């Protein structure tokens, strides 16, 4: 996580305005991005961003520095985003929802290698829409871990701190998230491989 430009906790807790501005400068793009990926709605993401910083500013005196400032902000933002998702969809899919390939070992499926598709295939608007749909189909718990680990490059330990879960739970959820995404994209790209082969 970005430590170079992080304002000092002491400065923040003493009410240093420059430190607050620096905190916004460094972390707001990351928090907004996290929120946008979580809720897939720019207005809601902006609400989450604002709620996160307001909550952080109000609670900065209680911040004990047991985790980094970034981890602490991610934690507030993640909780806000999960609350938004719960409001929208109170019955959420369980983290134990079967993942193709992982929970059905006896399923004898022939896998299609779609990595060989021309690079142009991966940058179309349709592909971007598929990527977006697939990530939104993940349960919030899997989606959060995937975003933090693979898109925000938090370590397993940092992700565990953000979500207040064990490192082994992070690893399990990350594997499940990645496999589910791979499976969703495979359905689409395998068809593209067939179409190209038939042309």
């Amino acid at each position: 996580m970005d430590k170079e430009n992080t304002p000092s906790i002491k400065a923040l807790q003493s009410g240093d305005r420059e430190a607050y501005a620096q905190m916004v400068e460094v972390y707001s793009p990351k928090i907004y991005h996290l929120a946008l990926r979580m809720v897939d709605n720019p207005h809601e993401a902006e609400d989450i961003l604002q709620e996160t910083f307001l909550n952080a500013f109000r609670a900065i005196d209680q911040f004990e520095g047991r985790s980094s400032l970034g981890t602490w902000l991610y934690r507030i933002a993640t909780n806000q985003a999960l609350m938004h998702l719960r409001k929208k969809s109170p019955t959420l899919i369980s983290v134990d929802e079967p993942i193709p390939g992982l929970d059905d070992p006896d399923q004898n499926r022939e896998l299609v290698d779609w990595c060989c598709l021309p690079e142009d295939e991966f940058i179309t608007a349709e592909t971007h829409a598929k990527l977006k749909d697939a990530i939104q189909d993940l349960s919030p718990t899997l989606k959060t871990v995937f975003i933090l680990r693979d898109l925000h490059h938090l370590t397993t330990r940092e992700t565990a701190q953000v979500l207040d879960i064990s490192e082994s739970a992070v690893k399990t959820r990350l594997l499940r998230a990645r496999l589910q995404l791979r499976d969703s994209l495979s359905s689409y790209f395998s068809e593209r491989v067939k179409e190209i082969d038939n042309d």
Partner: protein
Amino acid sequence: MIEHNSCQDLLQGLSAYIDNEASMAICEEIERHLAECDNCRIMMDTLRKTISLYQIVDAADEMPNEIQERLLKTLTIEDMWPEDSSNPPVDPQATIIRNTPDHDEENQT
């Protein structure tokens, strides 16, 4: 050892292998298995491709400047933290409603 249920075992260790977090012994076993099992090699390649596609698409996504401007306005740094920082911040909920665009639209109707 990756033996009897080897494809399933490989799957369990795949994330750690991709993240370079697997032990050398496990890496060697996985690589031996991948050299012999087409399905697992495809699984590995497409899993890596999946992650990289998300990372490429994601890198191009930046927060519009006006969102940070609205955030700074919401936080009203100048007013929320005067020299005497013991002053409580303004009502945060009220501020949120004032500065997010969709709420503005609602207020205008």
